[in-house]
């Protein structure tokens, strides 16, 4: 592992929470190893050593956060820093074992605390170069996991054919149609908060025409591919359908 990188072990069965957590951190600064169960995390820590931070969900199977932590202390002599993830504050969350309690869905102030704790650069905004973010969908649906997965599924199925259509219109020199498709696609990129793709769509829709469109179309297709790859990594269940 790169020595300058910070290392977080995240234990939470909620794939959505795992994916959302990852969007807050640059992969060049932080390595996040996520586990759906405590057993996987315990095994990993036994083999790889203590992370800079262990984040553990209150009711993680099979032991729950407290017993998992006790096991790590007794069996692995774990002395690292731990934060608790839970839907709401409880007696467990107030335990002195935990540096902090993080409520779900993750809030910017909690993530800011994690970044400060790990001595990472802390900006009020999420990184501009992010491939996607679920913040908008989470805000809109109050974190409704089914809605978020359905929205990702719609993105997966609807954008690719429209980009192909856009390219075809360009080949036919139907530049106005290219603009219309770009205009229609823009909200899809905005809703997943990819500012580069949204900006490219906007330029194709309203500012650029003719042969100057071609490099932007290619760039948009590339950015879309990156989004699909990242989403596929984070939501394999959506992409397996």
């Amino acid at each position, binding site marked *: 592992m790169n020595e300058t990188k910070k290392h977080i072990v995240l234990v939470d069965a909620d794939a959505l929470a795992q994916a959302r957590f990852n969007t807050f951190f640059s992969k060049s600064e932080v390595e996040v190893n996520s586990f759906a169960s405590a057993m996987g995390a315990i095994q990993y820590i036994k083999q790889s050593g203590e992370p800079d931070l262990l984040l553990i969900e209150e009711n993680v199977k099979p032991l729950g956060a407290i017993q998992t932590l006790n096991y790590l202390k007794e069996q692995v002599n774990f002395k690292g820093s731990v934060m608790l993830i839970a839907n709401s504050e409880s007696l467990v969350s107030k335990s002195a074992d935990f540096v902090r309690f993080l409520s779900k869905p993750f809030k910017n102030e909690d993530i800011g605390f994690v970044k400060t704790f790990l001595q990472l650069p802390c900006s009020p905004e999420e990184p501009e170069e992010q491939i996607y973010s679920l913040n908008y969908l989470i805000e809109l649906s109050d974190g409704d996991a089914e809605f978020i997965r359905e*929205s990702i599924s719609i993105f997966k199925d609807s954008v690719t054919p429209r980009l192909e259509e856009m390219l075809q219109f360009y080949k036919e020199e139907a530049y106005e149609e290219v603009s219309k498709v770009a205009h229609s696609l*823009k909200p899809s990129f905005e809703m997943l908060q990819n500012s580069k793709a949204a900006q490219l769509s906007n330029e194709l829709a309203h500012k650029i025409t003719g042969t100057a469109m071609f490099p932007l179309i290619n760039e948009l297709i590339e950015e879309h591919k990156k989004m699909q790859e990242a989403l596929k990594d984070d939501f394999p269940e959506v992409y397996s359908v």
Partner: protein
Amino acid sequence: MSKRILVIEDNPMVVKSLEFKLKKDGYTVVLAEDGRVAMQLLKDQEFDLVLTDLMLPFVNGNEIIEHIKNVNQEVPIIVLSTSTQEDIITDAFEMGVDDFITKPFSPSELSLRVKRTLAK
């Protein structure tokens, strides 16, 4: 009985979001993915509010607004737009729309504007 809202929008992600939010707010939502379907629905059914995009396949938003204003002046209309369409928004207001919402919309703003427009 819950208020009926016709949503005319061609981006499926925006449609999904509007449907989710409006249903959560207690409205009955009817969807039209293009202007032609919308025109047919407006002929066949009655709505308490129309929420429409302006750039639509087959029949554009302005034609839909014009049609509604000719047929039933009472139905309030909210336009969904992108922020780069200021001139088009101005035209829409001149045609008599009640309000506009920028895409992607703020969930709380949508709730508020829909509620306010329906209360007029």
